[in-house]
């Protein structure tokens, strides 16, 4: 058994990001690509997202998650791109080798010219929320419940409360209802939902499921199986208001309280991280602080639409290909533009620009804002101003910076802010 595999571009993760990156790398002329996927088929989390709404941007039609993934998988196969399933990457090194294990090969090494990180994200578990009370069965992250219902065909419960109004929680409110469960409430700590507006409409309002904003679960009851939860209103500092407690009888609590990029490999490799996104710091090519290692998709920052994941993966895949084909050309020092944000804009991806080319900058805001303008400044000069009637943390925003402005900024900063109209 060959214990070292050489490849031009190695891609960690065979979900939507990994597959799109692989296809882009092939289209950019790399013949030698290897996708390492830990699950037993390609597709990642899309496999359990059997609801519609995927692909409106990419394909101009509405697909389910598995359908969206299948289109990419078909392309991967058609192009003859290599992939290994049931293969878990356990180490990532700066010399662009990875250690992986699989039943077929045991523990082995992949040596690549360029690497694309596409490991996706995971859900924030209950422990991190610090809810007091007991620890009975019946408390699941929304994605875990989704797996039980959609992949395994089992119902984790039938009297449901959902904490957190992230998109998976909203989707699961509808899914559980369609399967005959009663969803009593979706509680959201913040005064606004973290999910997409369309999901609030289609998953809650259409089914008369109450969304309790500024509410949280303050206690869990039941010794063996969950028997109920205490829900409390919270004040503007997100602290429970005494006297507002309400007991809701339920056998299931689903948590949809945020997603965390799966960056254990990235961190252990010593790549520079962004504390806000939980992902790597990247440039316009989605190259990390380690030359030749790129990142895209939810491992870089959590996206709300898979279409944006695919878009980003194309950038990373193409750049990884370029890097591999040119034998590892270093990024130039002529251009090094930092994108700086104010507090209202929480983060941007990319964080830094090394090329003077038209660049779309993705970002999220820290609160719900109405009628504001997004302003980009180079020194004192406004280079871009875009009015938005509504901005919310749950919806990713974009602005486009021009090649000319980036060239002019050279090694300076471009400041992005949210301002009064």
């Amino acid at each position: 058994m060959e214990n070292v595999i050489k490849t031009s571009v190695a891609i960690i993760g065979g979900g939507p990001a990994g597959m799109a990156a692989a296809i882009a790398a092939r289209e950019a002329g790399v013949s030698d690509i290897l996708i390492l996927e830990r699950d037993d088929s390609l597709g990642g989390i899309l496999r359990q997202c059997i609801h519609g709404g995927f692909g409106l941007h990419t394909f101009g039609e509405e697909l389910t998650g598995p359908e969206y993934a299948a289109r990419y998988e078909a392309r991967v196969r058609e192009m003859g791109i290599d992939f290994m399933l049931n293969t878990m990457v356990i180490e990532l090194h700066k010399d662009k080798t990875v250690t992986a294990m699989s039943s077929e090969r045991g523990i082995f090494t992949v040596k690549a010219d360029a690497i694309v990180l596409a490991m996706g994200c995971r859900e924030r578990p209950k422990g991190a929320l610090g809810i007091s009370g007991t620890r009975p069965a019946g408390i699941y992250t929304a994605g875990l419940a989704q797996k039980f219902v959609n992949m395994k065909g089992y119902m984790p419960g039938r009297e449901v409360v959902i904490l957190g109004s992230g998109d998976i929680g909203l989707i699961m409110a509808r899914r559980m209802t369609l399967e005959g469960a009663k969803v009593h409430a979706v509680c959201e700590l913040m005064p606004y939902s973290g999910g997409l507006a369309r999901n609030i409409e289609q998953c809650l309002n259409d089914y008369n499921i109450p969304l309790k904003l500024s509410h949280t679960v303050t206690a869990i009851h039941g010794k063996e199986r969950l028997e109920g939860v205490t829900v409390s209103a919270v004040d503007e500092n997100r602290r429970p208001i005494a006297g507002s407690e309400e007991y809701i009888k339920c056998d299931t609590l689903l948590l949809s309280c945020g997603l965390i990029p799966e960056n254990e490999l990235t961190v252990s490799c010593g790549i520079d991280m962004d504390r806000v996104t939980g992902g790597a710091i990247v440039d316009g090519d989605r190259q990390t602080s380690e030359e030749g290692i790129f990142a895209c998709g939810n491992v870089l920052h959590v996206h709300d639409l898979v279409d944006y994941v695919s878009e980003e993966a194309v950038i990373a895949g193409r750049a990884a290909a370029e890097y591999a084909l040119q034998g590892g050309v270093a990024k130039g020092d002529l251009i090094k533009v930092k994108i700086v944000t104010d507090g209202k804009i929480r983060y941007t991806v990319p964080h830094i620009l090394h090329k003077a080319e038209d660049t779309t900058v993705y970002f999220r805001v820290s609160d719900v804002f109405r009628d504001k303008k997004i302003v980009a400044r180079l020194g004192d000069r406004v280079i871009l101003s875009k009015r938005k009637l509504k901005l919310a943390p749950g919806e990713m925003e974009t602005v486009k910076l021009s090649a000319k402005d980036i060239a002019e900024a050279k090694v300076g900063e471009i400041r992005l802010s949210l301002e009064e109209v």
Partner: protein
Amino acid sequence: MFDVAVIGAGVVGGLVARALVKNGMRVVILEKESDVALGATRANSAIVHAGYDAKEGSLKAKLNVRGSEMMESVCAELGVKYKRCGSMVVGFSEEDRETLAALLKRGESNGVRGLKLLSGEEARKIEKNLGDGVSCALHAPTGAIVCPYELCMAAVGNAIDNGAELRLEFKVDKIERANGGFIIGAADKSVSARYVVNCAGLYSDEVARLAGDDGFTVRARRGEYILLDKECGDHVGSTIFRCPSKMGKGVLVTPTVDGNLLIGPTAEDIDDKTDLSTTAAGQARVRALASEQVKGINFGKTITNFTGLRAGGSTGDFIINVTEDGFVNAAGIESPGLSASPAIAEYVCELLSGVGAPLKEREDFVPTRRPMHYFKELTQEEKNEIIKEHPEYARVICRCELVTEGEIIEAIRTEPRPVTVDGIKRRTRATMGRCQGGFCTPYIVEILSRERGIDYLDVTKSGGKSFLNISRTKEKLWKNNENANNSLHNKAKTVKNADGGNA
């Protein structure tokens, strides 16, 4: 008839059973739960105390120091993780310094080696993250950490491997004296044994009463803990206690043998011996106290919080005694019970010998057990050898803790055999990482179902009615079931109907 029935499969019961088996006894271990190590053993500070804390001349002092001396070799035999990381009691005032000096004196008279009083500055040289207010410390290099449930499972497993029997879901409700021995009943079941050792933890007073001894009571003392991610595991290198004062004993901040950071416990006497809930006030108290003695703890990296119940005896000391006809109490085993547990086992053997039990060390006793985590310690080549034969050792189930299907199957096939998801967790660490089972739970349910021949729906989190799923989707009865609240109780019936054919 068994020679000895050990009631309670906690760390004390496990080590007592092992010591008795080693000395030629035919032993049966009786446990009311569906797994071992579910009482006080399940959740505590996981500390091997050096032995300066207990009052001179008490059983606690004697058995703590002896147990602490034995612990390293017992752990080595049983393949249990043990680390002599040392401990430090930190103080904030001149008054604290006097208390620490008294502790030093007490420790020395208890026979604890290497104790030393340090200034705040000296202490900070060893532990850089001590709180700014820390002005003095007692350093105990013999302090250590161990995983209590791992020790318990290994002790019970080793006892079983050497011939002991384990009866789970055996809740003792009757103890009768008959034919020069005891008949121990649990609902419709019973076993008979010449001798009985009561290691029933929180319930040892109730068990003693069944045997006619109402000389003591045991009260539950709730201790709340917070467990932080492995990223924070090296925030302190040793166990940091707070100097006991009028304000109480305070909390400790310690690394665990698995590399996490553990903080707690609170101490609150409660009446309900089954109340394992955490409270907002308790959690806040743990955070506030810990932050005084150790600075910069990142509570944002909390992966779980939990409560443990200590079995506080009414005498203030361990209650270990024997009747002439051979009923032994090993009760009131609160802190430093874990530290003392190997010595308690030794002491129980002495007591039984004293009333005529024919204890004699067996020549064929195998004291060793393969470590539960041996696969992780292998070299890449060794792992590949195993994977070639058993490819399931390369199939990662728990991604956070990198636990493979092979390791889970092996845990299921190793005594004491688990039947629940939490049982798998305590043996393999699967679901214990940062995602807390968010990814791997369905796979573990599947493996348990397959390996133990349990219906998927009957797999529980932790026994009893802690079912993880309550029906199939699209189930006829499911839709028609009017009474939603009965869904759990109707589960078995529901499953049966599903077999009767619906798509």
